[in-house]
């Protein structure tokens, strides 16, 4: 690095380094590979200088200095490993241990405890203090969080992360002096918070521990599998801690992945749905009106025979497929291929939780304008239309908060609710529910039916946005169809490069749309009407494609046009609010469901095939921002099969085997042929999130209303999976009104 005005030269342990001015000494030391121990210092949080562990020697300074509060100065000569420093750290440890019980054999943090590591390194386990240790019984703050007062070394990381980074402010500091302790926010000594577990994760000792991991095992006894989270659409990487084929907890302490160390309750503790007792373990077949266990051969044979018969008798247009928001890209692709080439129908859809197709269409002809999740935390201005990221997109909300807190980003919100992010916003325009499209028209200056006062506010918002540059626009399911194009038209005029994120609900909502689980779009949003594109895909798939757009989800579900419905990993009865009867789905002769649990839809089915969850299979997910990540299998699925396998076996039973033998082969085909998915395999295999950017090459078609809607899960619900997670069901905040959090 050459010396510029903004860089400072200093010497750390005899090595000259250049760091940007304003860097903290502790970070400068870390950049040389000399890790200075610290308990209270945490990157990104305010400074505390409470633990005194980071003392270092600075030449010409008479006393040792705390590296976490000293800003680098030119010509500084720093030593981090002298006998004096080691002695000082040892003595600091002795102070920290005055009240620490050293009950490592019992403590859950044993084996991954920063204090334990330091005592091992500097040796201060023998105390000279004779005073009796202050003891208080352990407290359970919430169904997630336990607090053990004697173990706390008062670094206040938890208090700061909850206040500054999470903006929850649920933890505080009580009492004074030797009796200082961490207190929760409810008067009865319990927590009311987002239960994200950040305080537990960040605690350098075992003062805050989780209920889910409590006294279960030890860090060295588990397998660690880093894979994208199976819940919301943000695609956080969670390192699953697995023992005995059971997920005990998740975390991301190695900070790989797009989320850094951040995870919400779902990523950390809601992997427990995988071993819920009600999990389906074998195929169910309806016999004499009852769903009864059957063998795989029997079930698949039944499905293939009846599906084929109905296709032959009433035509392929009477067969419909509903895909999933939580199956992998490969499975979605295979389903699209199966439905279109083997069955020969375009009746293919899924619960669309954001109008990705409209965005791809609106960005038609432009260079790639998708923002990645990490771009948000570096953004200078953000416009959010609809959605409640705090609940639906915890990582994006975290990134937005970091952008505002650390870089002074300007956040503008148009929403029908007073969502929590308003606390970070420069301006919140509250509009009547369902008037998002009108608000976008008002931004254009067009006449609308919303009140004059709101229009005035929107005019102010527009004026403010016009002064910003490089705005990132986020929009939820409230904005769909032509409103997306109008929003893009408006924001395109703003200065700088405007980028977009459509906010979809589930782990692979984006992937489902990208892979063409749409009645009128082929993979990569290629239009079905375009003969050239259709021909290209006919060549790839080696079969003729039906050219007429199929039925969309709503038409399939209530229209009486179908004889057979094939549902994969979704629960349309509940999502589309249908009565729980078979008649509500139309005059179906066959209903097949792939599911993990016996959902409302599965209960009505003729055949239920037990499917593997995202933690039990390989493949890729695309998060809502368009970042592709590879799944790693954490659990042995046992007798259940992946959706990929089921569709493949079905194609064999049908008599037209699909040639894709593995999800790797399917992904290679996706890479070759789906626009924007030509991503680096090497990066994927290395566990990175690789941006993909499907642009349709075809202008947007308008989306009929009622198709794109968010399930609007809260922090503590997650579709079907959330209902079977003991951790999510245990927290009391689940029943609170959302505005309380």
């Amino acid at each position, binding site marked *: 690095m050459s010396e510029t005005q903004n860089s400072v030269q200093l010497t750390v342990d005899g090595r000259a380094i250049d760091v940007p001015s304003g860097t903290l000494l502790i970070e400068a030391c870390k950049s040389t590979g000399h890790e200075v121990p610290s308990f209270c210092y945490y990157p990104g949080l305010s400074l505390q200088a409470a633990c005194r562990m980071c003392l270092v020697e600075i030449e010409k300074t008479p006393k040792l200095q705390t590296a976490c509060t000293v800003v680098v100065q030119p010509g500084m000569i720093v030593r981090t490993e002298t006998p004096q420093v080691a002695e000082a750290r040892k003595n600091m440890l002795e102070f920290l241990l005055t009240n620490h019980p050293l*009950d*490592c*054999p*019992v403590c859950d943090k044993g084996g991954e405890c920063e204090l334990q590591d330091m005592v091992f390194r500097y040796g201060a386990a023998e105390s000279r203090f004779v005073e009796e240790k202050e003891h208080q019984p352990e407290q359970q703050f919430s169904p997630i969080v336990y607090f053990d007062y004697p173990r706390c070394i008062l670094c206040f990381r938890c208090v700061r992360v909850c206040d500054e980074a999470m903006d929850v402010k649920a933890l505080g500091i009580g009492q004074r002096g030797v009796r200082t302790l961490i207190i929760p926010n409810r008067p009865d000594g319990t927590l009311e918070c987002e239960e994200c577990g950040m305080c537990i994760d960040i605690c350098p000792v075992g003062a805050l521990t989780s209920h889910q991991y409590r*006294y*279960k*095992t*030890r860090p*060295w*006894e588990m397998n660690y599998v880093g894979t994208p989270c199976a819940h919301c659409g943000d695609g956080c990487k969670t390192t699953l801690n697995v023992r005995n084929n059971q997920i005990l907890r998740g975390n991301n302490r190695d900070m790989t992945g797009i989320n850094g160390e951040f995870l919400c309750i779902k990523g950390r503790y809601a992997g427990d749905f995988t071993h819920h007792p009600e999990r389906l373990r074998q195929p169910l077949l309806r016999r004499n009106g009852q769903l009864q266990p059957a063998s795989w051969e029997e079930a698949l044979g039944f499905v293939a025979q009846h599906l084929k018969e109905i296709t032959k008798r009433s035509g392929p247009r009477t067969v419909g497929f509903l895909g999933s928001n939580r199956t992998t890209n490969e499975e979605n692709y295979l389903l699209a291929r199966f439905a279109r080439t083997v069955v020969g129908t375009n009746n293919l859809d899924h619960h669309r939780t954001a109008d990705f197709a409209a965005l791809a269409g609106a960005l038609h002809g432009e260079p790639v304008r998708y923002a990645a999740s990490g771009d948000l935390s570096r953004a200078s201005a953000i416009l959010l239309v609809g959605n409640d990221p705090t609940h639906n997109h915890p990582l994006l909300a975290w990134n937005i908060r970091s952008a505002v807190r650390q870089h002074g980003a300007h956040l503008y919100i148009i929403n029908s609710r007073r969502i929590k992010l308003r606390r970070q916003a420069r301006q919140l325009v509250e509009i009547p529910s369902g008037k998002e499209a009108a608000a976008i028209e008002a931004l254009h200056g067009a006449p609308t039916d919303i009140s004059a006062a709101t229009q005035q506010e929107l005019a102010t918002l527009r004026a403010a946005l016009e002064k910003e540059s490089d705005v990132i626009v986020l929009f939820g399911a409230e904005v769909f169809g032509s409103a997306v194009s109008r929003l893009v038209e408006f924001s395109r005029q703003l200065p700088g490069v405007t980028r977009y994120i459509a906010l979809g609900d589930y782990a692979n909502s984006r992937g489902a749309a990208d892979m063409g689980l749409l009645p009128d779009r082929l993979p990569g949003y290629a239009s079905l009407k375009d003969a050239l594109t259709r021909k290209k895909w006919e060549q790839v798939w080696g079969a003729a494609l039906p050219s007429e757009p199929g039925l969309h989800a709503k038409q399939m579900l209530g229209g009486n046009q179908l004889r057979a419905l094939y549902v994969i990993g979704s629960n349309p009865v509940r999502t589309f609010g249908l009565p729980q009867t078979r008649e509500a789905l139309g005059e179906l002769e066959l209903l097949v469901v792939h599911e993990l649990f016996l959902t409302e839809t599965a209960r009505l089915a003729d055949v239920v095939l037990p499917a593997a969850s995202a933690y039990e299979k390989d493949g890729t997910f695309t998060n809502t921002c368009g970042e592709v990540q590879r799944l790693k299998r954490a659990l042995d699925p046992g007798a259940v099969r992946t959706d990929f396998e089921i569709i493949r076996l079905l194609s064999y039973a049908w008599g037209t085997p699909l040639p894709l033998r593995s999800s790797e082969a399917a992904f290679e085909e996706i890479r070759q042929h789906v626009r924007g998915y030509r991503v680096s395999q090497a990066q994927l295999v290395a566990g990175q999130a690789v941006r993909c950017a499907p642009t349709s090459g075809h202008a947007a078609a308008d989306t009929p209303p009622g198709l794109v809607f968010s399930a609007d899960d809260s922090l503590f619900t997650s579709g079907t999976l959330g209902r079977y997670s003991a951790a999510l069901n245990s927290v009391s905040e689940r029943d609170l009104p959302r505005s309380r959090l």
Partner: protein
Amino acid sequence: MPSILKEAAETAFTLAKGFSVTLRTLFRPTVTENYPDEPVRFEARYRGIHVLHRDENGLEKCVACFLCAAACPVQCIYIEAADNTAETRISASERYASVYNIDYSRCIFCGYCVEACPTDAITHGHGFELATYNIADMVYRKEDLLAQPLKPPRT
């Protein structure tokens, strides 16, 4: 024939020497143990089948810290930990071992587990009769290893 005489003398000497050892040993105390007809005597530090001890209140000393499993060079110890509750208290601490298995088909009786134990919960006992026809029987469960509960106090 001096060679024949010499040979006879040597034979006699060798016999006498050999039988002198036999005769000497005949009057020494017996060291052979009549196992299995009589019980076996052990040295105090003999490393036999492990014993999981109880404290003075009859509670298990093991707190399921997993250090024995970590120290074990052959990974023969398998533990599952659990939480003590007010109703069922198994150990004196907050956690206890709900499952504690030692696989004696792997154990090499090195004693590292005993050294690692922070609560002196595990020691080597004097049990050694491990032979079995079924290798699955070599896995000893906590119930097999646990010391007998103390007699209830006299009332």
